[in-house]
Structures are given as C-alpha cells and as structure tokens.
C-alpha cells in the first residue's frame, strides 16, 4: 500500500530540484529543463490527488492540458533561444540584459 504522502514527497523533491535548476543555471536550455521538472512535479501531484479521491477524472484532464502547455512552451522557448544564439552568439541568461533599465 503506497500512501499519498510518498507521491507528494517525490514530487516535492522534483519541484525543489527544478527550482534549483531555474535559479542557478546559466545556460538558457538548462533553465528550460528546470521548468519541465517543475511541471512534471505538478502533474504527479494532480494525478496522485485524483487517484486517492476516486470517482471523476478531472485531475487527468488537467494533466493533459499541462502537457499541452509544456509542449507549446518548449517549442516557443527553443525558437527564442535559437534566435538569440544567431544574434548574440551566446545563450548565457546573465548576458541577456539589454532590457534592464
């Protein structure tokens, strides 16, 4: 018998590792990978809560929409990163500060 708390624990570890990747990595694609980890953690939570509350499948539907959003976000973010690489020859997120006041 696997408890709800064990799923929540795994997903919170994934979330923390994703946040660490977002705030500490310099490479833009590494930041994107952190975002994917955070979205996966949220998906595990949605499906786990849905499983332990029986009945309707609304958690699954939410997870499907999160997966759709993640796919769209990854495509647009990679297009932006590639364009940035053509223009600046760098994907270091610390170098991209021309919008800073």
């Amino acid at each position: 018998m696997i408890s709800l708390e064990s799923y929540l624990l795994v997903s919170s570890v994934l979330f923390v590792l994703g946040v660490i990747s977002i705030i500490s990595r310099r490479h833009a694609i590494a930041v994107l990978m952190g975002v994917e980890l955070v979205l996966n953690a949220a998906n595990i939570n949605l499906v786990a809560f849905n499983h332990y509350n029986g009945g309707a499948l609304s958690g699954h539907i939410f997870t499907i929409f999160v997966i759709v959003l993640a796919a769209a976000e990854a495509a647009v973010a990679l297009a932006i990163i590639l364009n940035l690489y053509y223009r600046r020859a760098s994907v270091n997120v610390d170098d991209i500060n021309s919008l800073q006041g």
Partner: protein
Amino acid sequence: MKELLFVFFAVITVVSAGIVSFSRNLIYSVFSLMATFIGVAALYVFLAADFIALAQIMVYVGGILVLLIFGVMLTQKISTVTITHLSVNRVWIVFLGLLLLGGLGYTIFNTSWFTGEMRAAEPTVKAIGNLLMGKYLLAFEVASVLLLGALIGAATIARKEEQ
C-alpha cells in the same frame, strides 16, 4: 513487491533529476532528463493513469526531449560543452533548496489530506475521451488554438529576418 518497485522508480526519478540540476556537462543533464521522464511515467502507471503515462512517454520523451537535445547541440560547440553553468555559489543554492524541501515536507506530513476511496484500476481512455468531447470541450478547443498560435509563433521567431 509493489512497494519495492515504487521505491525503485522513485529513486530513479529523483537521482536523475538531481543529475539534471547539478551536472556540469549539459549533455549529461539532457540525457538524464530522459530517465526522469520515464520514471515519472512509471509513477503514473502506479497511479492507474494509463493514458497519462502514454502521453508522458510520447510527448515528453518523444517530443520535448528531442527538441531540447536539438537545442543543446545547435547552441553549443561540442568541444566547449563541459563549461560549468552555475551562476551562484553552490552552497547557497543547496541551502535554499533544503530549506524549501523542509518546508514542503513539513506541510506534507502535518496536513490531514482528504482521501476518499481509491479509484479502481480500470482503463481511463474512454472516460477521458468522453470528458474532453463533453464537459471540457471549450478548454479543449482553446488548447488547440493555443497550439496553433505557438506553432505559428515559433516558426516566425525562429526564421531568419529577410534583408
């Protein structure tokens, strides 16, 4: 037996996510992200979510991961791929992460979660299809328009400007 398998897949997921966050080599990060995605799909199987597990493998491993590898290969010279990519002191990052994890763990184990009876392990594809074409039809259509917009936007951004 089921518990042992769960622990096995949870350890795979967490360890490979750790490699994603802490590896100095970006290629290692991307490839261990694949192990993370497959481990998460296995967790979905334990939660009796067959359609979600399949969509996870197809969309994440088959789509997003290939895009990420493509991006890494295109924006890095292979010879300089081992440059470290941390911008902040590692000690502070680990300290902050442990603090966040401690708060989340405290919340998880001190909350009395509402749990009804568990959903029976039966196929979910038909029910999900009925819900998507019925109760959630508007959200489904909005998501399809969003995908179309993202497709056009990504193609517009990624092409070179005409002189």
